């Protein structure tokens, strides 16, 4: 098991390097002159040229990339063009909110998705099953930002149950979490349901019945653990889309997470911040997937070797 974990951690290194390379390349190809941006619209060209040189923007791509990776290893993601604040600090300040949001969203969607998915599968074709399938269908078809806006109108403006913005108190967390969780809950419901239905057809479930197990034992004791395995993968993969979706949700609800910082940074052409944030989130996402793989192996003994 330890070997498995170590192996997965080792495998993470090239993946992370790859992530940095891709995002760095994308941002490198961005038209626009960072030096001009830092100095502002009115600065004379000579000054801009000097700064370009200082920032190493005239160096070849490989040199710039190597420098970036080198700095990154020391925890230095550069400084924001717009605020001159070290990107690492902005990330440290902003990311916890995004993480909270994503975790809350994940927690809620698992809390809703798994039990409903299981019940839907066990009581296939029942009313509950139909309702949850309709919900799942609708939820995946509604753009999150639209849902968020509608929730604000309904529950914040008209009913005044929840605040429309922020993410500090419990009441503030309700609407954004629902917004973010809706799609994911739908995915988890569907995944759990189909995985459960799949597992229920397996031979070993027949074996369990043949032993004289009752339904509770069959579902909880035999089917659940097996059917959860694919769901966990989905949860891991979807954590990425939650982190991505947080960008939109944060914008709708004015949550000061890394997502809004990133959107802002794009508007301001603040490349180091965009680059740093994307790389950071991608790394976090890889780590989440590592964790998922480990959980996976804990559940499924076949993967441990």
């Amino acid at each position, binding site marked *: 098991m330890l070997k498995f974990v170590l192996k997965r951690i*080792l495998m993470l290194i090239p993946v992370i390097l790859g992530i940095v390379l891709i995002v760095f390349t994308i941002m490198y190809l961005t038209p626009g002159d960072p030096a001009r941006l830092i100095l502002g619209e009115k600065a004379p060209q000579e000054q801009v040229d000097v700064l370009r040189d200082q920032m190493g923007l005239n160096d070849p791509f490989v040199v710039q990339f190597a420098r970036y990776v080198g700095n990154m290893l020391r925890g230095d993601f550069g400084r924001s063009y717009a605020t001159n604040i070290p990107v690492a600090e902005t990330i440290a300040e902003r990311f916890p909110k995004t993480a909270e949001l994503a975790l809350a969203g994940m927690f809620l969607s698992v809390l809703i998705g798994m039990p409903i998915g299981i019940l839907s599968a066990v009581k296939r074709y029942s009313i509950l099953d139909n309702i949850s399938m309709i919900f799942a269908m609708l939820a995946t078809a509604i753009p999150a930002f639209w849902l968020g806006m509608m929730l604000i109108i309904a529950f914040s403006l008209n009913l005044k149950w929840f605040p429309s913005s922020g993410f500090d108190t419990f009441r503030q967390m309700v609407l954004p979490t629902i917004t973010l969780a809706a799609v994911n809950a739908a995915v988890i419901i569907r995944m759990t349901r189909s995985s459960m239905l799949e597992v229920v057809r397996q031979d070993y479930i027949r074996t369990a019945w043949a032993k004289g197990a009752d339904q509770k034992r069959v579902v909880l004791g035999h089917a659940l653990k097996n059917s959860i395995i694919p769901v966990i993968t989905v949860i891991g993969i979807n954590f990425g889309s939650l982190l991505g979706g947080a960008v939109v949700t944060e914008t709708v609800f004015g949550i000061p997470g890394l997502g809004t910082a990133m959107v802002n940074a794009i508007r301001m052409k603040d490349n180091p911040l965009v680059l740093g944030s994307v790389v950071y989130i991608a790394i976090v996402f890889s780590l989440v997937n590592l964790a998922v793989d480990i959980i996976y192996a804990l559940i499924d003994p076949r993967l441990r070797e």
Partner: protein
Amino acid sequence: MTAQNSAAGQGAQAPLLEVRDLSTYFPVYGGALSTVKGYVHAVDGVSFTVNQHETLGLVGESGCGKSTLIRSILLLEKPTKGQILFEGQDMQAMKAAQLRHLRRNLQIVFQDPYAALDPRMTIGQIIGEPLRVHGEADAAQRERQVKELLEMVGLQRGYYHRYPHEFSGGQRQRVSIARALALRPKLILCDEPVSALDVSIQSQILNLLRSLQSEFGLTYIFISHALNVVRYVSDRVGVMYLGKLVELAPVKELYTTPRHPYTRALLSAIPIPDPTVSRERILLQGDLPNPKNPPAGCRFHTRCPFAADECRAAEPALTEVAPGCQVACHRAVRGEI
């Protein structure tokens, strides 16, 4: 048995196929960096010859390397070492075009009649494929040939435009055989062609294979794990165990006087559909060892009731003990068992 007679009559002729010390290993990946941690010795130093018009049967338990051997002969799997001589020519040394040409002479029939036919092609396309690939005949000619082939294997010409799913397992196996026959090959490699079929269908296919052999002078390598089937079709039989050929003998010899302990056990394990026959049974202990790390010495020693120290120490070579009878067992060679 016509085939056997003709083979015996032309005994002096050069063999159609000669396999020399053929080995095929599959790398096993492992460790933190997915490096090669070892090899599955799927086929390990196998040598034999196949003569014109004869049927060489190969038996062995699941995983002993039968399919790999066949696939290696066809160069579908790259052999790790050894030589494959077809009509005296080294297949691995051939140029691509030459090899392509030679492939016409070597065809294969698979075990699973469901997986062997592309579900998206019509029977006509499937059987015509070898002709198409080799640029044989134009479309019209091809259709005529395919229909002839259909008839040859006992199917109706009208099936030409049907799809595989419309057929039963036995019929599909006939289609597979027709495809293998399309290029008029000299050698057909049959990888468990009847294992997936019901008994009542199995005999139809076996009869078909035999009649085709006599009609076209075909040569077969016939793989099966069912010894009764092998006995029925083969002139000579080879027994494989964990990638090794442990015994090779003419069919009568092998079934009447099996020499290798494994062959004996295998033979005795087969239930005979006759409640009146009662035999002394040699029950083997344990399972087939993991081919990733086969036992040292004789590979069979872990399950062999006659194992001695020398069996654990040295690997026995395939040795001729009687005309045409070879066995790889220290003690059997000396006639001790």
